[in-house]
């Protein structure tokens, strides 16, 4: 197959392949059946796999996530679609208290995937643009992935479905139809917990994930013209985090910029900084810097949203400062 698949199609393909492979895999969510979901990620799946494996649910995020956990205990492998990831907040208790602890406190397996459209740059306003990954980072028992490419979206989805624990699968809605590529052949599985070098470089490292990987690559391209060689590390998995890859790039370039779309305070950049500070202190030739969203609820109007979210020019400016340090 040499046709290109979008990020969105790649996710759908992964689910379809896994559902065909394992009859325990099923999907639940709001409007995901005949309608195919608000973004059409599950389009056609109910026609292919039937109403009992692609289930339209009531508007009950906690209920759906809890039900997924119960089914998972019994050997099923549920995938939950949240119509927008912003509604994961309604299932926060169920995920962090029930699901995340099930194996540890009760030896209950809880293999399930919770997925949904995340992120901004689409004029979605404060409740249709969120990046809630940091809220789950301090919950042992969960795994978190957030792909930036179509191939990773597919490979990580397959890994998430096969994982024995709960994986929060964040999908960036800005990338749904904007990025596409020819899929790797065969049973393409990307292991959870492994980062990806999106661009090699020698002067400065940028660690990032999801939509801002593309912003970082754009910045790297612009900076190359100035003679600055930037390495871009796409984390792909946020929990567990690929410490080896993080350390390798920092020890190689000695300068680190962390970029994420979430708000600055309490965002995941903090955790990365702490890990790097602990393990690579001697290798650092400059402070670790962060380019992130400003600390406000994400506003809707384009000039406001653009001002709040990280832009390519911000990254360029931050890298220049690191190099000049």
């Amino acid at each position: 197959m040499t046709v290109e698949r979008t990020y969105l199609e790649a996710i759908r393909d992964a689910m379809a392949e896994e559902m065909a492979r394992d009859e325990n895999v099923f999907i639940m969510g709001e409007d995901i059946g005949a309608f195919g979901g608000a973004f059409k990620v599950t389009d056609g799946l109910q026609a292919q796999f039937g109403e009992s494996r692609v289930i339209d649910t009531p508007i009950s995020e906690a209920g759906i996530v809890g039900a997924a956990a119960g089914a998972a205990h019994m050997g099923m492998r549920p995938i939950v679609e949240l119509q927008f990831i912003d509604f994961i907040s309604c299932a926060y208790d169920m995920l962090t208290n029930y699901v995340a602890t099930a194996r540890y406190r009760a030896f209950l397996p809880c293999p399930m995937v919770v997925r949904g459209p995340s992120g901004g740059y689409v004029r979605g306003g404060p409740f249709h643009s969120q990046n809630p990954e940091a809220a789950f980072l301090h919950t042992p028992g969960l795994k978190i992935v957030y792909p930036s490419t179509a191939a990773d979206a597919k490979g990580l989805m397959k890994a998430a479905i096969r994982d024995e624990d709960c994986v929060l699968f964040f999908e960036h809605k800005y990338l749904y139809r904007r990025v596409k590529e020819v899929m790797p052949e065969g049973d393409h599985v990307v292991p959870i917990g492994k980062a990806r070098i999106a661009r090699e470089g020698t002067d400065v490292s940028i660690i990032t994930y999801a939509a801002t990987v593309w912003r970082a690559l754009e910045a790297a391209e612009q900076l190359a013209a100035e003679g600055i060689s930037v390495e871009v590390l796409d984390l792909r998995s946020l929990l567990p985090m690929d410490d080896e890859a993080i350390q390798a790039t920092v020890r190689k370039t000695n300068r680190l910029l962390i970029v994420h779309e979430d708000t600055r305070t309490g965002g995941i950049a903090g955790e990365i900084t702490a890990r790097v500070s602990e393990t690579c202190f001697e290798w650092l030739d400059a402070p670790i810097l962060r380019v992130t969203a400003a600390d406000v609820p994400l506003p809707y109007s384009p000039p406001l949203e653009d001002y709040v979210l990280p832009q390519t020019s911000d990254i360029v400016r931050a890298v220049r400062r690191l190099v000049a340090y």
Partner: protein
Amino acid sequence: MARAGTSPARSKATSVAKSSRPSDALSREQRLSLYRYMRLTRVLEERLVALYRQTKVVGGLFRSLGQEADAVGSAFALEQRDVLSPLIRNLGAMLVKGATPLEVLRQYMAKGDSPTRGRELNIHFGDTEKRNFIGQISHLGDMVPVMAGVTLSFKMRGEDRVGLVYIGDGATSTGAFHEGINFAGVQRCPLVVIVENNGYAYSTPTHKQTAAKQFVDKAIGYGIAGVQADGNDVLAVYDVTKEAVDRARRGEGVTLVELMTYRRKGHAEHDNQSYQPPSEIEKWALENDPIDRFVKVLREQHQVTDEEFASIEAEIVALIDTATDEAEASPMPEPTDALVGVYADPAVIPPLWFRESVRSAVDSNERPASWGTYDG
């Protein structure tokens, strides 16, 4: 689930005695006002559709076509001091409460002088200073506990005020709805909860939302009054809401009002309604349009003339024309306004060091070619 073209106005727990309906007290002028608000809602939404097609609306557009009676008739039962909590299909209720077409247009166009200064979208805005309606958030159900608290404060302070909150058939499935209505029930808050049963939640028909036969059946489980009415009969809506409001005002607590109506447009403008049988939509449009039905009443019972209807129409169109011009001329927000007002103290967040020139950043990064093609 095919829905009947008309829904009988069944009422439970309390019954609306036909002999003396609250709406009997409405003057001819008030009735024309009800009509005007319904038309204003519809014409304004139609204007928004036109602007949406011209890509002047930023983001999605939500219609209440065929549900105007439910929003307008219920809000009309409130006093100005009463607080209303609208949802996305309650534009009509907001207009009754005093929201202006200009505000709505600016809001949909993401303008800097919109009621939320461009921070929130569509009709997510409010005014608790004068007109007393509250800006909703997207998370369904959350306004119910909030309105329980709003009305609890009325009770605590002995204020003669009532609250009204809407909830969709779909949103009744949320835990927030349950916690809020139960809390209000225990506290006997002066609150009216209107379940707008329009048959669908996005693509999901009611029978996939709950196994309950009707939403009014939920009232007894909260120990509150429950009543059901024809949501497309603006006077019936007014009647049941007014009775519920009066009950709340008398200190007799919460009423759940189920209004039977139908969503004739998609969830939002981009939704093709593939899941709604076309015949069903058509039947409701032909046989049960709330404005058509009320026009008939006005003509037959109140001798409203073509001239009168035409003059209302002219006033509405002129109002919306002017508002459209004004809204289009409104400026977009200043980028740095994004940093203002997260907290009372500090009132402004300092800008991030890497953001030197906003406009240039925006200009040079908006949809660059390298991000791939965007098909919609």
